[in-house]
């Protein structure tokens, strides 16, 4: 009975002391974290300069990635719509065209056909090309009628559309048959190259961030040499001594990430207007999107991670070498 009570008492004491230890530990980390920020705020100019350098290094690949992501979305939306344009003989009459359309629609490779009559083609050309006045000088409409053929889903692969293209070319009424996939493919391939280039650039710049923060922390360690020596003298562990430096790296990374986010957002906002004008010229509803929530989070998080890693690099190289004499 007594034994039971005392053991319950003891386990109660342990349960009570453990959250306290964790709380203490968290509290100490929090204090060191704030102290590191406090130290940085004592030298606002150099802190701002360092975080801006980091911000620029992070914002370059992040900004380019965001733009490429936009372009990829654009080409992605076009990818599925790999249509075949059939430019018909200029002297084809309406009855012939209608017959052809009916016949083609019966083929199961073809999902839909959009017919652009000669008049409609002329109207569209007049509107988009800016050569309206010049067209008035022509006696007759120089444009042929066009059929835009949409392959059905199972025949929209590049190979299947190529076969369909060949068979459509044999139609006597068809003057020129053209697969509109080519430029989509090229754009997509070009985006892939650009993505790879940004990835390489990003890696190189991540290395730069690592070294910038590492070097900044190294100088900080040199400046606080006496403090480190004396702390070791009175029994500070390496973990205790490196903590403030790791948090300094954390803050540099975080501030750099926020700076980068700000730069990317402002740059894209400045680009949005001209990009819209450009896309209107291509008759597209393309809109430049700002980095989304998760992309922003990734940007800031990776910058912070680089900050801590850079600090760890400096700390593991330089801190252990300082021993009291």
């Amino acid at each position, binding site marked *: 009975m007594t034994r039971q009570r005392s053991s319950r008492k003891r386990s109660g004491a342990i349960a009570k002391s453990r959250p306290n230890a964790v709380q*203490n*530990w968290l509290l*100490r980390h929090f204090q060191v974290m704030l102290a590191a920020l406090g130290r940085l705020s004592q030298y606002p100019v150099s802190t701002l300069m360092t975080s801006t350098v980091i911000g620029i290094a992070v914002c370059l690949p992040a900004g380019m990635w965001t733009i490429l992501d936009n372009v990829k979305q654009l080409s992605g939306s076009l990818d599925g719509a790999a249509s075949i344009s059939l430019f018909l003989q200029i002297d084809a009459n309406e009855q012939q065209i209608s017959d052809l359309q009916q016949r083609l629609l019966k083929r199961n490779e073809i999902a839909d056909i959009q017919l652009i009559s000669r008049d409609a083609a002329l109207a569209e050309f007049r509107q988009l090309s800016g050569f309206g006045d010049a067209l008035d000088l022509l006696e007759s409409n120089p444009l042929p009628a066009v059929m835009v053929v949409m392959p059905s889903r199972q025949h929209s692969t590049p190979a299947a559309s190529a076969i369909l293209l060949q068979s459509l070319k044999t139609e006597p009424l068809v003057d020129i048959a053209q697969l509109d996939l080519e430029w989509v493919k090229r754009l997509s391939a070009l985006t892939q190259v650009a993505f790879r280039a940004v990835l390489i650039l990003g890696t190189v710049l991540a290395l730069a961030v690592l070294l910038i923060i590492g070097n900044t922390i190294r100088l900080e360690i040199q400046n606080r040499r*006496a*403090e480190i*020596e*004396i*702390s*070791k*003298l*009175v*029994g*500070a*562990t*390496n973990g*205790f001594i490196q903590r403030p430096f790791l948090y300094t790296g954390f803050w540099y990374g975080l501030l750099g990430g926020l700076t980068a986010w700000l730069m990317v957002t402002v740059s894209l906002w400045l680009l949005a207007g001209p990009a819209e004008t450009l896309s209107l010229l291509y008759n597209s509803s393309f809109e430049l999107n700002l980095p989304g929530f998760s992309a922003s989070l990734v940007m800031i998080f990776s910058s912070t991670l680089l900050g801590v890693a850079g600090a760890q690099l400096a700390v593991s190289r330089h801190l252990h070498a300082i*021993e*009291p*004499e």
Partner: protein
Amino acid sequence: MIRFDNASKRYPGGHEGISNVSFHMRPGEMAFLTGHSGAGKSTLLKLIGLLERPSRGQLMVDGRNLGKLGNHLVPYHRRKIGMIFQDHRLLHDRTVFDNVALPLVVAGVGHQEIGRRVRAALDKVGLLNHEKSLPVTLSGGEQQRVGIARAVVSKPPVVVADEPTGNLDPDLSREIMNLFMQFNSVGVTLLIATHDIALVNAMQQRVLTLHQGQLVRDTGSY
């Protein structure tokens, strides 16, 4: 509490810090370590605080074999040894309070406990009214007392002092020695290196004398 068994320290380059030193100090004992400069006094104290490692022989402090203590355990060993230096080794951009609090902070002592113990230590060395001062505004004797407060604030069982009165005049030196006597009277094992023979003779304590790294005289316990 402190046991040297044929302990030697040879520095890279062949210079011998101490060679084949053997002695034993009981818990709560007080002793002076004398000898000319370069006789190995500092080396011996550094070995106790593991600022140096012995190259040969055995060294036990507070039941721990220091030769076999892993590097990661060194900080925990140092928390049990109060160290006092001739040049004080204070942080000049921190207040007296923060300097004395450092050993407690690194040991993870709670905030309120730190305040209580730092003030108790400062009270003991008579500097309670200087807790907010910076060390540079204090005299040499006062700075040394800050160093002493820092060494004893975490109540270590062993305190070693390297020429603690080296820069002080005789009156201040005697004051510092009285402080050490007080710590010794509450059971702290104390080893004080000094070349101030007059002071040592006046204190009537055990004396260990080093000459060229060797222990040449041990008066034994009083």
